[in-house]
């Protein structure tokens, strides 16, 4: 599924530049260690973390996009770093569970 389709269907806020990408699954964790060990390339990553470190972790394993959940505010420093490294950051006021349920509902599955 294309990232733009997910943005539209889930009514996500787009915080960074958003180029077209494929999404092939979902990864949920708030630990960067977990992202490094277990996230797969082209997955969409759901987290409440907003630290600039999320950009370096997402880049390392080639995450398609990060969705910051529960309405957590993302600093301009994180947004600027993400734009520089072409990491897409989206956000939603919904909980991680609610978003995961909606992602399943629109047909995004785990790899």
């Amino acid at each position, binding site marked *: 599924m294309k990232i733009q389709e997910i943005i539209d269907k889930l009514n996500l806020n787009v915080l960074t530049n958003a180029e077209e990408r494929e999404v092939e699954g979902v990864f949920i964790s708030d630990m*960067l260690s977990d992202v490094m060990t277990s996230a797969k390339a082209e997955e969409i990553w759901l987290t409440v973390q907003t630290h600039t470190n999320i950009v370096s972790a997402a880049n390392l394993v*080639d995450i398609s996009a990060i969705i910051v959940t529960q309405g957590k505010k993302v600093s301009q420093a994180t947004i600027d770093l993400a734009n520089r490294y*072409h990491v897409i950051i989206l956000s939603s006021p919904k909980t991680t569970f609610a978003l995961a349920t909606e992602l399943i509902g629109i047909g995004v599955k785990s790899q």
Partner: protein
Amino acid sequence: MPEEKCAHTWEMINVAYGFVVTEKCYNCDKVSTYFTFEHRPPLEEYREGDHFWNVMESAQSFRFDLKCSKCSKVEKLDELMGLMMCTGCDDTCEVDSLRIILEPERTWIYVAFGFLPVEERKQLSKEKIAILEEYFNQRRKSLRSRIKIVSHESVKNIATCYGEVIKDLHMLSLTPLEEE
């Protein structure tokens, strides 16, 4: 398949979570880092010969090795303390110079760190760094970006480096201060 003829396909194995502890001797100012599997990182100061070690910080982290799924070769990565993404803070630094060249091609530079003190601990070899780089590139599905991993020895001044270290630390403030 014989190891020497194998075009390795790496997978992460032996993943074990713990803490990277950084401590400093208040007698000589030496800084030391080590990995511990303890559930709670130690807090107490202790004496070791002439050193009086005090904990500076503990970050949740993990260790892993790489195994080739074709020939079963295992590459131990005990010397790896962590990875840092170069974000370009000093254009006189060798790593930053490499970043300036490779960033337009969407090749991101990461620095592999060993444990401190560098002169007393075995550090990651060039061969292991190359394998680590191969592993993270093999995890990618598209060619839209690549990873380049270099040794911390290439960093001009690690004390003033603004790179983004990937560690589970100082991330508890989930809302930016200016928004609170």
